């Protein structure tokens, strides 16, 4: 059984205090708790400070293009269903350039866990407006305060029927590790939006900002996370400032419903066709 140390990799270049350290830490704990071995896990990441996580997490990694995290992760999972596929990226990567891919991945419900390190800012490009930045947020590209409404990840995911919607906070690493574990264990597409403060460029949505506001649904006994409508209502009431599992539903995965799609990974199957196969296939053209 792998231990936390087995998942150690390159030293992160994140700023000291960056929320992404917490995500790396919690993800490592979650996979260890689930008894996963490094070679069974693939972390597909986008471009941003957040996107560097595939280099710092001791599993197979794919550091792809800005916004294309989920299409690559989709290909990996369909190629080898035996892999545990984690997609991870920033709020710009996911809800800006990659927003369409998120919603279409939700529609397919492929068994992938998607972690968004939502710091409400573009960190790596040094502080521009992000899709999740609060309206009125002053940044290098919105010096007079932004005029756009922020993207609402939880509401969109619930609207599109995402089968596992959760939120976590880098300031509560233990809870985040539990949420990650549930998300990975969930069969189907899991979205975990993580409030992961950028201590360098976002002086508004700080650790304290979230500490003062977040409500932990996992500690609310009469919150039914299987009722989509109740979930939507809760998110509206709290303005989305919740952590814990917001909604969870059993839904068949894409790969389970595909006609003729084998249980074992495609990558491990024989490739060549034999004479009989060719003879059969040729009939279509005669």
């Amino acid at each position, binding site marked *: 059984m792998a231990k936390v140390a087995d998942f150690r990799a390159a030293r992160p270049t994140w700023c000291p205090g960056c929320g992404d350290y917490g995500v790396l830490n919690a993800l490592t704990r979650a996979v260890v708790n689930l008894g996963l071995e490094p070679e069974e896990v693939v972390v597909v990441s986008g471009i941003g400070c957040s996107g560097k996580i595939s280099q710092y997490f001791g599993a197979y990694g794919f550091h792809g293009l800005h916004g294309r995290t989920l299409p690559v992760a989709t290909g990996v999972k369909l190629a080898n269903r035996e892999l545990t596929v984690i997609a991870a990226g920033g709020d710009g990567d996911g809800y800006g350039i990659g927003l*369409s891919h998120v919603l279409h991945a939700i529609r397919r419900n492929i068994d992938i866990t998607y972690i968004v390190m939502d710091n409400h800012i573009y960190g790596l490009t040094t502080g521009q407006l992000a899709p999740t930045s609060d309206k009125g947020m002053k940044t290098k590209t919105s010096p007079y305060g932004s005029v756009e409404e922020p993207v609402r990840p939880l509401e969109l995911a619930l609207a599109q029927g995402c089968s596992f919607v959760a939120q976590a906070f880098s300031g509560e690493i233990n809870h985040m590790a539990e949420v990650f574990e549930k998300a990975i264990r969930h069969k189907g597409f899991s979205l975990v939006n993580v409030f992961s403060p950028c201590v360098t460029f976002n002086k508004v949505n700080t650790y304290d900002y979230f500490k003062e506001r977040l409500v932990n649904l996992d500690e609310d006994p009469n919150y039914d996370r299987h009722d989509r409508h109740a979930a939507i209502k809760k998110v509206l009431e709290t303005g989305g400032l919740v952590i814990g599992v917001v909604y969870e539903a059993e839904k068949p995965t894409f790969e389970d419903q595909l006609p003729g799609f084998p249980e074992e990974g495609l990558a491990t199957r024989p490739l060549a066709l034999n004479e009989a196969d060719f003879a059969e296939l040729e009939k279509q053209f005669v």
Partner: protein
Amino acid sequence: MARRRNPRARTHPGGGPCRLAFSIAVSSINLCPPCWYTGLRKGVKVVAKELRHAAAGAPRTLAGEFNWKVGGQQGEGIDSTGEIFSQTLNRLGYYVYQYRHFMSLIKGGHTNYKVRAADHLIRHHGDELQVLVAFDQKTIDHNLHELVRDGVILYDDAFRARVPEGREVRLYGVPLTRIARELGNPIMKNMVAVGVTAAVVGLPVEAFRSTIEARFGDKGARVVELNMEALRRGFEYGAEHIGQVATLPQLPEVRRHLFISGNEAVAYGALAAGCRFLAAYPITPATEIMYWLIKNFPRYGGVVIQAEDEIAAVNMAIGANYAGVRAMTSTSGPGLSLMQEAIGLAGMSETPLVVVDVMRGGPSTGLPTKTEQSDLNELLYGTHGEIPRIVLAPATVEDCFYLTAEAFNLAERYQCPVYVVTDMSLGMSRTSIDGLDYSRVRIDRGSLMTQEELDRLEKGAYKRYLVTESGVSPRAIPGMRNGRFVALSNEHDEAGLEEIEDTSTREIQMKKRMRKLDDLDLSEYVDYYGDEPAENLDLLVVGWGSTIGRIQEAIEMLAADGYRVGHLHLRALYPLPKAKVRQYLAAAPRVLVVENNYTGQLGGYLRREVGFHEKLEGCHKYNGDPFLASEIYSRAREVLMNG
């Protein structure tokens, strides 16, 4: 690929207004469309500079083939008419080539379906027409120029057909719709038309049964019989009122042919090569590749995923390749342009990737249902920065099968993007071929680490981007113990574990990636067709992709005029087999580069790679239709005359 000399000369592709609307954009002088080509082919009077070679040989008349076309409004079943006739001719043993002319709309407009049947292998929809079945006047107006002098027009007498004065044509009004109504459904007019056709070419109705059953079998015997009845009614009318007015060629010895399109052959080749993953987005003219794999993958465990757009599709294919499956995407021009960033990802992360581009008329949305060879520049030079890439260009449906299969080997051997580029005319035209040699399909997965090799390494010692002499590094597949690596779109070092930016590592890795192709010699994909060595030629014609059949038929016409014309056809475009190409271009006195685009993209590329700036003349067509042999012939004559 021995080609029987064509006993019957070719008759002029069409009298009447000179409709040979193609351009002769010569890099030097800009000739107007070839109005000088006025006379009828037989006693052709070429109003051009004095011919150096007298027009020797018998007048060119078409021998050993029959050309038929049905036309009408889209949505009226024109395609099924053509498919039934062409499939039947193929089953009977003829060599058939079919070409669909259609518009970017669903109902109305004009569509036609050409069927050429011959006693020998053909790779061209044919310059001319013996029998035209017209469901409306537009069909006559649009296709009359193709009809041979005493050609036959069978028209649905539901409309009054008009033919220009003085145009020698045998015109027969046939109550296609009326008969169809009697059978209970006007759409049956198509099957009635096939019946009439059978009569005029002397084919028995029963010859169509196997095709009708294959097509309508699953809808029950009643439907099969209804269609057979429509055939019979048409046949009876044809036999009674028209009689046999055209003759099919002799049946070839080898009668069992595969009747397969470029798109189907690409998909079949991919399956044969062990591809088990296609991610794609629907786009004309590439969507049939999706259909074929959707139909055939399930038996072999493969998966087709319709992505939300082309960027998702190509990134899904990259993810699947990274995870060890042979994966591809297929698209046309607009999708190719959307995929350029991801092509760079495959190049930098050294992840195998096969991308099929079925070219269509550009630019932009352009001519979605028409053919063109105008994506070459983007295939060769697309994406920012520099990466190794391979570009294969099938010329025939057999190539579509073999080259797509080989593309998967090359993608894994060189761990880079491999393009297979065809076009609408090759992709969507079914051709009868003698068969496919499945023994030619090898599976070579290139440099892969085995679990044993990884187990022998120290923990964490595996280097995905190991700097080797060849530049190719052994690839671990996610799931293998001790094979951890991060496929990186940023610059990186040998270990492949994190972004590295220092200058010396960058140089080492850049050289490593770029030298991977140094040992790849694709000269076997450059073919010379000619009885004489290049230096003895009057002219060397150079082409790539779908023009191969048109060029070969034009060369036959030129040979009939006494010219010695050779043909160099490029099936691989990058890395260009420079030595072999240079050898032929240097030897030949004149060179004509034939391509379906405006700017002469292959001509420009050859100038860049091997020179011969002055020697290379262009034969360019960019109006959306495939080349006719006579168009290449005329341009070649002009180049020959300018000496």
